């Protein structure tokens, strides 16, 4: 019998998922735990395996090897308990066109055996700015509103573990703020949150710990602060029209005229600037700042590529 109180909220144990008879490895031995109450970010480029991993966790996809547990419940052998503990916001914007917002929430709640929870449904509608849309048919809602309903559907049975698979993809600033305020509140109240997103500033601001996936493998797993401190912590930003020396170009990110170069310490900043001067590269609007999660992400991904 699983002991939910002593178990990680989510546990991945050597999870593998292959397709085409093993030729394509979507997940290649992923192992890590997420503790109860954590706000965990799962990052990675497109095709890294984030959605596959979440699909295995949610029971939408069967792992080829390995085990996944939610609050100590195996997602295959004890799927009913595992799914009751899980609220998943899917990535695709899907809805049932036959029902209103309130009907959709009551139905989703009923699937989990939870009835008569209109107070909680009202609270969800209020917190997600959906109160005035409660009786509107799903077809009448804008994309952003439908996304809010997806979030409400995931939370309607009060799961202790919440999984958000790119919940803010293509939505406006207002929804992002509303959503993050609400999710942060739920996290403070003890809910575990697993977030995948391409908006790395969101992950940096919200997540206590980050895991990075690439080609189906975990390539970084640490506290967000440690990740930021452990890699290039300084960022030089400047504008130039000239070509960069090859050594600097290799660790630079160039967007039009804007160049961003990572540096590990003050000495490296000095040598970088000295080299630019020596090569006659004109530098405008020079700024020296702290590296953010996006810089860390790119450094780790580029490092893995090399």
């Amino acid at each position, binding site marked *: 019998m699983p002991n939910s109180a002593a178990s990680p909220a989510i546990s991945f144990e050597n999870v593998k998922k292959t397709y085409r008879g093993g030729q394509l490895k979507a997940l290649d031995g992923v192992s890590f735990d997420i503790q109860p109450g954590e706000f965990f970010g799962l990052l990675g480029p497109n095709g890294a395996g984030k959605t596959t991993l979440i*699909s295995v966790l*949610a*029971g*939408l*996809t*069967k792992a080829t090897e390995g085990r996944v547990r939610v609050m100590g419940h195996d997602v295959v052998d004890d*799927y*009913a*308990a595992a*799914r*009751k503990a*899980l609220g*998943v916001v*899917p990535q*695709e914007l*899907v*809805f*049932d*066109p*036959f*029902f209103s917002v309130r*009907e959709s929430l009551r*139905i*989703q709640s*009923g*699937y*989990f*055996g939870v*009835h008569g929870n209109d107070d909680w449904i009202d609270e969800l509608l209020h917190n997600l700015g959906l109160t005035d849309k409660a009786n509107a048919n799903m077809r009448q809602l804008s994309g952003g509103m439908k996304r809010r309903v997806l979030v409400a*559907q995931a939370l309607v049975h009060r799961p202790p573990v919440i999984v958000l698979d790119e919940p803010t993809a293509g939505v406006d600033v207002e929804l992002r703020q509303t959503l993050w305020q609400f999710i942060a509140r739920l996290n403070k109240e003890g809910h575990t949150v697993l977030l995948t997103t391409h908006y790395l500033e969101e992950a940096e601001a919200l997540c206590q710990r980050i895991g990075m996936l690439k080609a189906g493998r975990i390539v970084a797993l640490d506290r967000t602060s440690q990740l930021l401190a452990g890699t290039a912590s300084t960022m030089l930003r400047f504008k130039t029209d000239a070509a960069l020396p090859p050594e600097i170009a290799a660790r630079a990110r160039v967007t039009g005229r804007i160049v961003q170069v990572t540096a590990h310490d003050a000495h490296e900043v000095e040598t970088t600037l000295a080299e630019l001067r020596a090569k006659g590269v004109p530098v405008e609007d020079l700024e020296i700042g702290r590296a953010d999660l996006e810089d860390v992400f790119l450094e780790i991904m580029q490092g893995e590529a090399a």
Partner: protein
Amino acid sequence: MKGAFTLFKKEVLRFWKVAFQTVCAPVLTAVMYLLVFGHTLEDHVKVYETVGYTQFLIPGLVMMSVLQNAFANSSSSLIQSKITGNLVFLLLTPLSPAAWFVAYVGAAVVRGLAVGAGVLAVTVWFAPPGLDNLLWVLAFTVLGAGLMGTLGLIAGLWAEKFDQLAAFQNFIIMPMTFLSGVFYSVHSLPSFWLGVSHLNPFFYMIDGFRRGFFGVSDVSPWLSFAVVSVSFAVAAGLALSLLKRGYKIRS
């Protein structure tokens, strides 16, 4: 079973919200059949000594409507959910394969009964068929609708696009229904086709159902009951096995 009941209720609501299309339209179609076939064949075809052709036709049309609509309910609901992607809401739940089965097939039976009751209520005034044994009527209605709801569930799981489902419906279900003795007694057929008809489980559903009205049938109602029950058990076993495997719904 609370979750299963919610899914059942949702499936019933789904067709009830578009009842004009899912209930009224099939009733009108059945009435058209009755008017055309009844008017043209009433004086030319005699199936049983004591039963007029229009009377004979009514239970057949009722049962045909029950069967086709039970199939349509589970199959169309599943394929729509698969194609629009909202099946994910169900896949994320703790509902067991048995709960899926009970809910989808239960709702299909309800739609079949609703349409069948509608067809009977409208057509009975043309030539009241009488009622010999209500139990046979109920048993074959529920069992037949259950079998067709189950076949609809299997077809909905199997099909990946509407075209495949339409093929299943038009090339398998529709011919088997039409060639089951809805419009004629199979005893009027040449011996080869009579033998073929006896291989068609739809024949037993309609013949047994008709027995409940007239007290006469082409074969024993007990034989019909046994064939329909075994067919249902086989189809239910297959559907449950597919659901347990997550056939074409969990990758």
